[in-house]
């Protein structure tokens, strides 16, 4: 059997990638997604040759934006008719359709030519982890996340919490003053963790 034939099939195949956008920045992850949609992850890339892949994005509902962008970032639209200008803030758009923010981010990051609509058609966005089986069957590989997802305090075990390295501790004679409610005497508090533990005992 010809081995090179199969190699050629595998190089020219259009692969399906999965991307989990939970707690990821939509704009920065869109740049990476566009790389795979255009085919810039392949050495035989050319802008006019159709070498882009499909990307399935899940958890677009849980996408995260920096600082106050949810409140302040707005998507402007103009229908080019009288009174056609409108402005929607990010949180409003996200309420209406939780995939729209990601869609717009990828649209913005894509090439600004007539090939962009075909790229967008190869992008599949889902707000949750529920993806139709017909789509999931095609998915073969995973795009790594851009931002480190921080661990919540609940996920740490007690052992890990005990053994976590102490970066800073108050000196032993340091007293934190806590203003008492009127009428009650002040409670002497120390910031030092060792003294606190000794006090508890």
């Amino acid at each position, binding site marked *: 059997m010809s081995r090179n034939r199969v190699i050629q099939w595998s190089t020219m195949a259009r692969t399906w990638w999965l991307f989990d956008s939970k707690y990821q920045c939509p704009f920065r992850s869109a740049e990476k997604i566009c790389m795979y949609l255009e085919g810039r992850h392949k*050495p035989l890339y050319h802008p006019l040759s159709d070498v882009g892949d499909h990307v399935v994005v899940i958890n677009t509902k849980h996408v995260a934006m920096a600082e106050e962008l949810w409140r302040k970032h707005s998507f402007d639209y103009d229908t080019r008719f009288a009174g056609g200008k409108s402005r929607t803030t990010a949180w409003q758009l996200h309420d209406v359709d939780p995939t729209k923010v990601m869609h717009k981010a990828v649209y913005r990051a894509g090439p600004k030519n007539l090939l962009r609509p075909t790229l967008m058609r190869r992008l599949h966005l889902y707000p949750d982890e529920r993806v139709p089986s017909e789509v999931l069957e095609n998915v073969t590989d995973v795009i*790594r996340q851009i*931002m480190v997802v921080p661990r919540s305090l609940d996920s740490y075990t007690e052992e890990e919490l005990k053994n976590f*390295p102490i970066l800073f501790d108050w000196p032993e004679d340091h007293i934190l003053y806590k203003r008492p409610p009127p009428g009650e005497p002040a409670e002497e508090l120390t910031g030092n963790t060792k003294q606190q533990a000794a006090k508890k005992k």
Partner: protein
Amino acid sequence: KFSGRGRNCYVIGVNRMLRAMRFSTKNYALKSETLDRLYETRLAAACLEHGMNKTYFLTSLAENDINLNRETLSNLAIYEPRTFQSLVQFVKERSEEVGLQSRVLGSVHGTESRGILDEVKKHRWSTKSRTDEVD
């Protein structure tokens, strides 16, 4: 290419021909620029496959007197992938020899997926290790 009266009338056709020739002379530099940019994107993809930074790869090749231009490198990456892999391997081994074991090498997408605990252990911020060093 020549439509309308440009096809049949000399004076009009000549002017259009001269314009075309002017553009073709300007295109020599532009063509090499656009092709170089294409080769660089292809190299970036090939380096990503092998878990390396493109700029690091190119600079270390130049430092070690491997004077392959971007065109040949990208063609190697497409048609001779194992040769390209050997070049990447050379750069990795050379950097270890020199003493530049950077975090950029060996990781496909950088260190974004590292956890906080790994970072802390790496920088040795724990009090335990400090006492060991003192002893």
